[in-house]
């Protein structure tokens, strides 16, 4: 009987990146072919849709949410802080921003309003990450599971608010709050629902966090935390403080993204699952696609944004089928990334003797 084993493989950084890009491109090709078969549209049409998705400016709508969230998460994951709660932190950020914009006098101050709302959004996001971090630090409770559960609680808090105390006076149908005042909205690019200010800010955040993680002692220590807590302690840095920093920064950035969604996109608070929209979960994949390096997270979030655009482009015919198909394809491509990760890190050895 042949013997099969899996052993480690050492590839250079460049080879790793190339291999991943190759797998991703192959995946896109495969996905396009499958879609063509499933929908009966010619491959050419699908390919055009695909190509257009890459050049569609609407990618920035998604990048504005995915990039800051994923950059924050790459920081957390580097430090071995398994924050799966970005979705909930994003929702809480949205709640924070809405609170400032709708219920405080700050909401009517030009320029100050969006800034204050974003600061509050970040604080709210960090706040929602705090319990899981504390439970891990002082009780050793698996943070992956607690943060996951906190997502659902955040959904219900937002639902409760928009159906109950915050329900808009002039709102019919879907429960939402009133629209936030004009002064607190962030101006969007003409004809689009994203803001260049936000895009620039997001990229700046990514670059800054890269410098933080790779060029400062605290940042390097955060990454060391992923290997060994004792090592970090023995180097004179408090592992608890670092863990908390990583957790709070990732929560704050998810909250920031939630704030952006309110101030730029929704302009009012909506139900939790709509404001979250699964972006918190997708961001987890984006940060891994970017190899937990904030700089690489930029192209990773771009690629994922393209997938979102693509999935709308594919919604030819019935919207239900389109949505199902796009979810299938996105899931397939994300799984492919995991496969690529395997191929670059391990190899399978088969021996017949």
């Amino acid at each position: 009987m042949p013997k099969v084993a899996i052993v480690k493989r050492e590839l250079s950084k460049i080879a790793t990146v190339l291999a991943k890009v190759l797998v991703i491109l192959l995946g896109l090709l495969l996905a396009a072919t499958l879609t063509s078969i499933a929908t009966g549209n010619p491959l050419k049409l699908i390919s055009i849709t695909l190509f257009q998705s890459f050049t569609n400016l609407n990618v920035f709508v998604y990048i504005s949410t995915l990039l800051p969230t994923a950059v924050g998460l790459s920081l957390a994951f580097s430090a071995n802080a398994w924050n799966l709660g970005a979705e909930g932190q994003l929702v809480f950020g949205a709640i924070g921003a809405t609170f400032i914009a709708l219920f405080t006098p700050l909401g009517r101050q030009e320029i100050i309003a969006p800034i204050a709302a974003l600061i509050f959004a970040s604080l709210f996001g960090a706040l929602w990450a705090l319990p899981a971090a504390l439970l891990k630090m002082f009780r050793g409770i698996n943070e992956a599971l607690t943060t996951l559960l906190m997502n659902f609680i955040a959904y219900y808090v937002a639902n409760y608010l928009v159906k109950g105390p915050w329900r808009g006076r002039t709102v019919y149908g879907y429960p939402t709050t009133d629209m936030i005042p004009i002064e607190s909205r962030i101006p969007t690019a003409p004809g689009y629902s994203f803001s260049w200010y936000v895009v620039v800010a997001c990229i700046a955040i990514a670059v800054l966090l890269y410098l933080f993680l790779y060029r400062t002692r605290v940042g390097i220590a955060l990454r060391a935390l992923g290997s060994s807590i004792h090592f970090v302690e023995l180097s004179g840095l408090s592992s608890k403080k670092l863990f908390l920093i990583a957790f709070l920064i990732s929560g704050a950035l998810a909250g920031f993204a939630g704030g952006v969604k309110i101030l730029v996109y929704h302009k009012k608070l909506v139900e939790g699952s709509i404001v979250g929209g699964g972006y918190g979960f997708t961001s987890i994949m984006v940060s891994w696609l970017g190899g937990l390096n904030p700089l690489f997270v930029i192209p990773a979030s771009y690629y994922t944004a393209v997938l979102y655009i693509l999935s709308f482009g594919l919604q030819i015919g019935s919207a239900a089928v389109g949505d199902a198909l796009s979810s299938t394809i996105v899931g397939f491509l994300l799984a492919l990334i995991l496969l690529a990760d395997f191929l670059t890190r391990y190899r399978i050895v088969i021996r017949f003797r």
Partner: protein
Amino acid sequence: MMMRKPFIEVVEIYKKFGDVTALNGVSLEIYPGEILAVLGENGSGKSTLAKILYGLYFPDKGYIKVDDVVTVFSSPAEAKNRGIFLVSQRPQLIDDMSVLENVALFLNISPSRDLKKKLEVTLRDLGMAIDVDRGVYTLSYTEKQFIDLAKALITQPRLLIVDEAATYLPRELKLKFLDIIKKFATRGGSVMYITHKILEAIEMGDRFIVLRKGNVVGVFEKGVDVTTIRRAMFGSEEYLTTFKRSPKKITHESFALSVENLIVFDEHGKPSVNDVSLNVRSGELISIVGIAGNGQKELGEAIAGLRKAARGRIMLNGNEITHAPASERIKKGLIYVPEDPFREGVAMGLTVAENVKLFSQSKVSRELLDALIKKLDVNPSNPFINVAKLSGGNIQKVSLARLLLTTPKVVVAYSPTRMLDERSKTLTLSILQRLAESGSAVLLLSEDIEEVLHISTRLGVMVSGKIVRFFETPDLESYREDIEKVMVHA
């Protein structure tokens, strides 16, 4: 004896980890009833070989022949089915299960009353009285190690691989352990006895194989002398047996580090450090030596802050640090050199440069970095590669860089030389000595009397969590026999 058929033949086994070659074409054979001693320094490939024979690692090339059947194992289950079992330094038991469940797991049956009886009999034969319904987490290291052996013996294996398994056992139990293994061989079983201690190998072995850097560099029959084996193990490399310290007058009066009535519990609530007091002045190098498992490790970790002190006080330059977190103590000038480079000494995900950067509160220039690498003889010398690409010994050297960045007030080291070859060992000890000479207070916790005898200003012997006696310089060498006696029988 040589006319008989070997039980197992190992043929041209190769194994690489990344850029590090662990085994470079190793062949050997073991006969029934024979104890084959495999010798080599840390990093020579002996453990890798053991793991390949037990199916934990898959060889890159080469094969194994058991009873004339050519094979390679892709899991321990397969090796076990062939009657091969590995006992290693760390007992491989599931802490959260009972002894009985562990043995049932190993035998692949459900725990039953019959099994319980059988196990109790086996343990009694080994001279161990252990309640088999107890959770493994309540057992001592020694008890666990014996259970690991007992569960193997129940299956009546044909080859026992013993990988430094007796190293950390207390003297008397060690003899008992070795006796069981010898008996196993006289009844026709094969044994592969892996160790880095030459005398122990000579005591146990019928035949000897020496590994160096993944190659078989010597095969010897019974009757070989220590020097021959030593030469094979260390090759042409200089082997420094002695190095003399120049005893210096201690001028400082106050204590840089003092430990008062310290009590430390192990994971299972037993006191592993039991009412220890000691003081170290600046410029002193104090060693605490004892057989493994007598509390040196826990003492070191408690001083470093990696382990809680249950009672007592720890003072650093007159300030109490008993309950400060490790990071705080490091910042105050205490440096701890851990034993395990992989898990505590470095961060495996980072580059050499990044690791060194973390050791230093201030900026580390490129020149300083290169100088450190040169001084510590880290190979390869490129500071920008991932530490995970280095061999164990070189990783330990990177970990030692923490000693060279400042003149620390207090240095505590626990078995810092365990992973190192002779030359690096000498280097490490001389660094510690030089630190003491330039004013650091150094506390060296060790299991090896050889490494501490010549460099200490004072030497304490630790037995069962207590320091039972201190020996004073100038002439520690003359106390050697006394020290050994105290270590063994307190």
